[in-house]
């Protein structure tokens, strides 16, 4: 146990001193890689950005048709759409961070660049992509009954917290994935199950006390519910949702960065 304790004590220092986060060249490298990812995603496609919107819209149709029957709440379509947009963002960006080391294997092997650049740029690209798709989605959300107020401001800081959570979890799995490629497959297999374990197609009120307790063991619960608070209930995220999200995000980045930092010396020989 003392091993973990010692580690936690040293963590903030190690995190701040060892990373070239404030180096201009490093920042430029992160942004350039992120920009490349975005460019490549939309380069040769006719519909471009609308592909990112298509998946949530298809699911939205299904949810409206099927799940509206059990969810007797006002504006269920808005509830479902909000959940879908941010669920897609979280699950897709975790996968992108997870595979970032393997995707950039050739750069990792031949250019002297801190490998933290890869997950970070994957995350930056994912956030950028979210912002891009959010603009047209807003039109639909207003149409479905979204009432914008001051609580909207919580969206930006909360998305940073979400990004930190995604970065940590993705980096942890990405590090393990370099040595055991099963992680990537495992993740893509269990993520659809998590979709139903998270209140997107249904509201938590639909469940009884015990079931809700189980639901709250799922870390994604607090993130999706916070976004529901902001965009569906038009209130600032509740103390529980926000606090737990922040706690999970910090825990995630600590564990993720620790695993990455300890095992990155093995990247070159295993990738």
């Amino acid at each position, binding site marked *: 146990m003392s*091993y973990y304790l010692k580690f936690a004590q040293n963590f903030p220092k190690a995190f701040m001193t060892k990373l070239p986060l404030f180096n201009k060249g490093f920042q*430029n490298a992160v942004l350039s*890689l992120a920009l490349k990812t975005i460019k490549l995603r939309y380069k040769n496609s006719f519909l471009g950005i609308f592909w990112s919107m298509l998946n949530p819209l298809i699911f939205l149709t299904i949810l409206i048709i099927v799940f509206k029957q059990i969810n007797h709440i006002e504006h269920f379509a808005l509830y479902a759409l909000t959940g879908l947009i941010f669920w897609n963002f979280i699950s897709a960006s975790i996968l992108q961070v997870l595979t970032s080391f393997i995707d950039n294997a050739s750069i990792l092997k*031949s250019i002297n660049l801190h490998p933290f650049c890869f997950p970070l740029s994957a995350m930056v690209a994912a956030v950028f992509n979210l912002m891009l798709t959010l603009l047209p989605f807003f039109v639909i959300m207003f149409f479905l009954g979204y009432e914008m107020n001051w609580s909207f401001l919580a969206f930006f800081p909360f998305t940073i917290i979400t990004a930190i959570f995604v970065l940590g979890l993705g980096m942890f799995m990405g590090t393990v994935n370099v040595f055991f490629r099963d992680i990537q497959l495992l993740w893509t297999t269990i993520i659809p199950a998590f979709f139903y374990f998270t209140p997107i197609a249904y509201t938590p009120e639909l469940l009884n006390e015990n079931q809700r307790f189980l639901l709250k063991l799922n870390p994604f619960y607090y993130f999706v519910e916070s976004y529901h608070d902001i965009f569906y209930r038009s209130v600032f995220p509740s103390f529980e949702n926000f606090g737990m999200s922040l706690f999970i995000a910090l825990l995630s980045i600590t564990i993720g960065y620790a695993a990455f930092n300890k095992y990155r010396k093995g990247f*070159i020989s295993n990738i």
Partner: protein
Amino acid sequence: MNSVEPMIRLTNVDICFYVQENGFVSMKDFLLHPGKYKLLQKSFVLKDVNLQINKGESFALLGKNGSGKSTLLRALSGIITPDKGTIELFGAVAPLLGLGVGLEHELTGIENIKLSCALMGMTKAEIKLRLPEIISFSELGEAINWQVKRYSTGMMSRLSFSIAIIKQPEILLIDEVLSVGDLGFQQKCMKKVMEIKNNGATIIFVSHNFEEVSNMCTRAALVNDGTVEFVGSVKEVGERYNHLFDN
């Protein structure tokens, strides 16, 4: 060379690869006894390397495949940190470890220059300043605006050579990459390498082609099984290198 000034000094350098061998069984032990078991096994790639390369020298590393030459170059360029010992560098390093690496096939030549330079740690302002120089050295002309997937192999290596060389390095690491491209460009590369050398830069050349090396370098080291077996003139090292294949 009238005065001997060190440019690179390696002292007792060990470099290991970390390999996981036991699969998920070791994962269980690892998680149940924190700090006691190691998830990754060490295997030595370079062991106790001591080497000094002087300023303005052209130095060759000769050795069989898998002897650790490329790993040594990676360590010199900072991609791998040694597990033990120290590597002292007294100048800026430009590694030419593989041409065409980091080029994104869907992007154009210019976009690739910007991307590669960014990955090499250059800021936006620096890139803007160097861009015309890189474009003119690559001699790609019109093709600089094409997507790189339409380039021939030679054109790609022109592009990456032009990018890699641009920072006027004091130490240039070359890993058997100059044998691509057409004859004209090869000569141009060689000329550029010579020019960098004449400006006082140190060049380290990895190859297992002895003839290539003997034209360029004065001193050499023989790398065998992860150790530097012998350091001397190119001729001596070349002889010993050939002996490795005698039986």
